[in-house]
């Protein structure tokens, strides 16, 4: 094989979605709507090969995710392999299948960091959104992890049903003693796009939330690293999705499909190479799909001549496709997009009463 082109960047992070199975039914899950199409999961040996190839390729950070990664029986082995490869490992869990012993074993296996999702600070609301009783287990998992010195991020996805309690979210993060708090407004792809009208907050909610976060953090003296991801629908410019397509990030889905973004399967017409057939290096440097939106040559106007083209690379491809039907369009979040009116329409819809939520299910 030809040596890899030296001018191309190498990936720094690998998202390993080791399973789509999950006991929870969060209505904003980033997994595909057609979950049942991807039931065949990679075996342990293939994941081990993927992690080794990732380290050789220049990946520094491994995110073990899902679905619920703890339903994989080989999860401890996978953590050990990540450590042996020199990868910094994070595991994102709903924590409902993590008892104290499991958390201790994850630490012993060399996992560097644990990320626990919380859906709401009100237990009833958390359990309703998750589709299962889970608040108590999440709290217990965080407290156990902190008792043994495990670094923990609490991740709370924000939307119209919990944004009013953003202050309580910060209080909870302090009370549970986590190291980091991700206040992540819903990204409207996957199940969240399906539920957009039911999840989108009002402008008043968003502005109040921003104020509450600022005030709370200004008044706090404790040690907590807060990452506040604002909802991009309310912004002037699109986000630099994954710092650009095929620039620093790759994902591998449970069935072995290599994706430039975990939701890229929503874009029709893209063919995803599989790690069962190709090495990560071949996929990263040579596959069509990783080149498809890499860099700036493919950009449409008004992005192509825009000063921000190296900042946001035209925004999110999945969002462009989902909203405009054209994956090569400027992300409509951008106020310069000819289709920016679609955002305004979605925000106007958010001022009306919310329709019911559709919960994530694996239809068979």
């Amino acid at each position, binding site marked *: 094989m030809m040596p890899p082109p030296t001018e191309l960047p190498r990936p720094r992070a690998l998202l390993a979605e080791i399973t789509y199975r999950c006991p929870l039914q969060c209505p904003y899950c980033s997994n595909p709507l057609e979950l049942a199409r991807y039931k065949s999961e990679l075996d342990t040996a293939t994941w081990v090969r993927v992690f080794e190839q990732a380290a050789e390729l*220049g990946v520094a950070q491994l995110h073990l995710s899902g679905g619920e990664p703890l339903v994989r029986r080989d999860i401890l082995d996978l953590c050990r392999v990540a450590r042996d490869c020199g990868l910094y490992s994070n595991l994102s869990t709903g924590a409902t299948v993590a008892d104290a012993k499991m958390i201790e074993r994850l630490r012993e296996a060399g996992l560097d960091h644990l990320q626990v999702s919380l859906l709401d600070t009100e237990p009833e609301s958390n359990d309703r959104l998750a589709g299962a009783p889970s608040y108590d287990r999440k709290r217990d998992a965080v407290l156990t992890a902190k008792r043994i010195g495990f*670094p923990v991020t609490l991740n709370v996805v924000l939307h119209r049903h919990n944004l009013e309690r953003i202050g309580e979210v910060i209080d909870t993060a302090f009370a549970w003693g986590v*190291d980091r708090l991700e206040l992540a407004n819903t990204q409207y792809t996957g199940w969240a796009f399906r539920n957009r009208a039911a999840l989108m907050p009002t402008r008043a909610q968003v502005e109040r939330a921003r104020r509450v976060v600022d005030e709370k953090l200004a008044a706090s003296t404790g040690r907590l690293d807060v990452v506040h991801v604002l909802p991009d629908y309310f912004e002037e410019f699109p986000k630099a999705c994954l710092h650009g397509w095929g620039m620093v990030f790759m994902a591998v889905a449970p069935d072995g499909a290599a994706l430039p973004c975990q939701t890229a399967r929503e874009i029709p017409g893209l063919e995803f190479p599989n790690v069962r057939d190709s090495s990560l290096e071949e996929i990263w440097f040579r596959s069509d799909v990783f080149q498809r939106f890499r860099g700036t040559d493919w950009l449409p106007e008004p992005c192509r001549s825009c000063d921000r083209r190296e900042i946001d690379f035209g925004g999110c491809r999945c969002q462009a496709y989902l909203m405009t039907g054209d994956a090569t369009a400027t992300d409509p979040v951008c106020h310069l997009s000819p289709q920016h009116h679609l955002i305004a329409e979605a925000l106007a819809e958010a001022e009306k009463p919310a329709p019911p939520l559709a919960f994530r299910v694996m239809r068979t």
Partner: protein
Amino acid sequence: MTRDGGIRRPVLAPHTRYRWDKVRKEHQLVFPEEMMLLNEPSAAIVKLCDGRSLEEIVAALKEMFPGAEPEDDVREFLGQLAERGLVNDAAAD
């Protein structure tokens, strides 16, 4: 408060790891979702954040980089890391 936040015994925060990237030949300070690339002196400082005192770190750097007067730079750099929660003070816990 001084520029270094008054740190006496700097240690890397539990969620932070120093890492040598053998592919790119670069020093990295890795933490969730992000990483900081370090030059040689910064990497040397980070690797000395093992609970020894600030004075000991400065002394060790003087041995590694003869002729350097690193104290101000060390205080400023550690202050920045502490500000971002990447370094804690073992003396404060």
